[in-house]
């Protein structure tokens, strides 16, 4: 098709399709520029990757069910731990949040679509190709990357055929993330409906604005770091080679300058989702809206000056150890503000406990446990004991599973009626919640004990004294993993039918997206609504009539 025809077609589309649904056929999903289509693609991709990464996790937990080597040889075990992390971070959690951003940001700020719709399509469609490169390494000589997702040299460079594929896959994920983040930031800054001032935006939008900034600042640094790995391995540079005047520790500094903000990239959107859900089911406006915004911004700023808390044991001048210890502990202040505000929002609210609210409350409790173990890890002298033990594994799984993933699931239940037009099955949703919440604690809580007792992470075998809690943890893992099949069943069931959802869906829900029909029409807000604010409900804009 010549550019001319494509152009004419685009012009036709404006006239013909504005008030209709999507074009028919499967190619719709490949060529689409619609933010709702692309949001759906991101969410399905993330869900599939959750199961791929989850299968690897179950492989790990099966091996660790009892001492000795049973199922996986140690090299394959290392491949599983490495790929589990890469897939869950870059393939599951991050794309899931971008999916939420695509679906919700335009509807929440009264925009007709994302600001740069073609680039939006590209941001998504790079991902399946990037993960093809990454997953293909399983079938290469030497297998998949096995040096840990942090890719520390020199170990990662000894990886056989997978090194170059790993690096280019990371490059592609980075390109996708940066383009996605640029789109989010431009949409929020330039596409708000008249009257939607920055301090009237829903907190989910605020949290994504700040997340997008973190992404644009952090991902290029990762790209630089892996580029240095590539040239060290294949082109004779000495960035991380002490014999040539470089330093392997330098990689860790550059990597964690990306890596710590990355942690907040995976949790700030979760804060945003929780800040939408708790007010709805407490039937009260969010407590301390502005302090939430400032807390989020403070967390983002501090996240760039704490990176070496991942490196307390690698060798640093004492001033460095102290600096990174204090800055890290400082993060507890704005995070504490957030937890306090969520509690204060619930205080004396007329609360009900539908499935999204259950997940949100579990998030607040369990994420806070992960936050506290993070504070423990921040204390340099004791980190020398905890470092690279299962205590660290327990910590970041509380933050990422009962934090980020719980928020993703909470958000999915919360907006599913808006997306599909049907109410999900509340009884099954509650079953899913209780099965997951109990099993996830059986899975991860004992790992604190294992770590404190000295069990190192990333090993396929362990001393006999660790046997009992490992067995408990593995049982929890399998229950948790298989419980998620229930989630897929519920989602598919809701898409295919069910009780018709009302426009507002939830009695206490406020915000622009709840003024739209359920399911949300293919095109929304082609004419921007004008916004006033209900002065009693900051952060919950209403269309002006």
């Amino acid at each position: 098709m010549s550019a001319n025809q494509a152009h004419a077609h685009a012009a036709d589309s404006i006239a013909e399709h504005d008030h209709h649904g999507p074009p028919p056929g499967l190619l719709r999903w490949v060529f689409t520029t619609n933010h709702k289509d692309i949001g759906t693609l991101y969410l399905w991709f993330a869900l599939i990757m959750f199961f791929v990464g989850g299968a690897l996790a179950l492989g790990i937990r099966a091996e660790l069910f009892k001492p000795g080597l049973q199922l996986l040889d140690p090299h394959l075990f290392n491949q599983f731990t490495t790929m589990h992390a890469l897939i869950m971070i870059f393939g599951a959690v991050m794309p899931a949040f971008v999916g939420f951003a695509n679906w919700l940001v335009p509807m929440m700020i009264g925009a007709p679509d994302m600001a740069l719709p073609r680039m939006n399509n590209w941001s998504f469609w790079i991902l399946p190709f990037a993960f093809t490169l990454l997953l293909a390494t399983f079938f290469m000589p030497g297998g998949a990357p096995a040096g840990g997702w942090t890719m520390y040299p020199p170990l990662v460079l000894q990886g056989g055929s997978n090194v170059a594929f790993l690096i280019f896959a990371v490059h592609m994920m980075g390109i996708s993330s940066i383009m996605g983040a640029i789109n989010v930031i431009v949409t929020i800054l330039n596409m708000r409906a008249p009257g939607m001032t920055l301090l009237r935006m829903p907190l989910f939008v605020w949290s994504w604005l700040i997340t997008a900034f973190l992404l644009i600042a952090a991902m290029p640094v990762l790209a630089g770091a892996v580029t240095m790995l590539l040239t060290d391995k294949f082109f004779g540079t000495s960035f991380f080679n002490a014999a040539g005047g470089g330093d392997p520790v330098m990689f860790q500094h550059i990597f964690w300058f990306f890596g710590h903000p990355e942690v907040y990239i995976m949790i700030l959107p979760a804060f945003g989702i929780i800040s939408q859900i708790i007010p709805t089911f407490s039937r009260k406006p969010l407590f301390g809206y502005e302090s939430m915004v400032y807390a989020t911004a403070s967390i983002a700023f501090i996240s760039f000056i704490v990176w070496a808390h991942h490196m307390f044991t690698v060798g640093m001048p004492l001033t460095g150890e102290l600096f990174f210890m204090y800055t890290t502990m400082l993060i507890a202040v704005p995070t504490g503000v957030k937890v306090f505000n969520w509690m204060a929002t619930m205080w004396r609210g007329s609360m009900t406990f539908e499935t999204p609210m259950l997940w949100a409350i579990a998030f607040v409790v369990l994420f806070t446990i992960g936050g506290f173990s993070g504070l423990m890890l921040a204390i340099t002298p004791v980190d020398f004991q905890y470092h690279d033990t299962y205590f660290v594994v327990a910590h970041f799984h509380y933050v990422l599973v009962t934090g980020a993933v719980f928020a993703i699931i909470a958000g999915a239940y919360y907006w599913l009626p808006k997306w599909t037009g049907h109410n999900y099955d509340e009884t099954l949703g509650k079953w899913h919640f209780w099965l997951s919440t109990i099993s996830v604690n059986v899975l991860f809580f004992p790992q604190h004990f294992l770590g404190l007792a000295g069990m190192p992470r990333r090993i396929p075998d362990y001393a006999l004294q660790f046997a009992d809690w490992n067995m408990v943890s593995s049982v929890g893992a399998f229950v948790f993993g298989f419980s998620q099949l229930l989630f897929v069943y519920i989602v598919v069931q809701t898409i295919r039918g069910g009780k018709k959802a009302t426009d507002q869906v939830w009695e206490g829900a406020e915000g622009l997206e709840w003024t739209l029909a359920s399911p949300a029409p293919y095109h929304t807000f082609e004419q921007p609504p004008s916004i006033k604010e209900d002065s009693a409900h900051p952060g919950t804009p209403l269309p002006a009539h």
Partner: protein
Amino acid sequence: MSATHPGYYIPHDTRWPIMGSIGLFALLGGFAMLLNGSSSAPVVMIIGTLILVVMIIGWFGTVIKESESGFYNDQVDISFRHGMIWFIFSEVLFFAAFFGALFYARIYSVPWLGGEGSVGATTGPLLWPGFEGIWPTNGPAEIGGAFGTIPAVGIPLLNTIILITSGATVTLAHWALKKNQRKPLCWWLLATVLLGLVFLYFQGVEFAHAYNDLNLTLESGIYGSTFFMLTGFHGLHVTIGAIMLLVMLLRAMRGHFTPERHFAFEAAAWYWHFVDVVWIGLFIFVYWF
């Protein structure tokens, strides 16, 4: 066509992104195959590159057509501006990683290897007795052998003057465009592109001199690594910027742009200034000190 599209223009389907993904996949996958010694890799890479080139020309061509047909209102223009600014911001951070490596090596790791400070006192003399951590260095194992460095006064200074001049000429072109003086616009743009090419030529001469006469290569330890990666990536960005400005020149000659609306020109100019600023950082920290 002069009718401005009412409201925010949203294209309704697009083939370019999926093409871009396939091209990128073939190019990078092919490169990885090449690094693993596959003989069919060059073919895969060439196919990927061709697909990417067609995609870039097609995608930008579509956007230019839409722009010239008046599809884009002021709000779309602002989206493009914000998008370009954040893209440049991401590029700044990409360079920051390599500058960070340079500073870390010069301030910490090289002196430590030479036995300086509390960290170095325990490791330097044990691992590399006799090594003096003085910049420039290719490390205690003298990887790549003895090498010479390029003095700041010479080609680097000349190239600094050339790039700063090109920053001025592109600004003169912008002023001409805003006054709707088409001829000076084209001449100043042409001057900018030529200055960019002269810069690249001198950079090539310098690299050849380094490799042939000074034994300064990418493999010359940490000095060669930081030197060539920083100047090399910068040169790549000069090349991209020059291509962007060349496209702007061709568009200006075809009568594109108006004194009020010329986002693409400004984006290319911003990019050029960004490349300029990075060079000044390079000149100071790589060549001078």
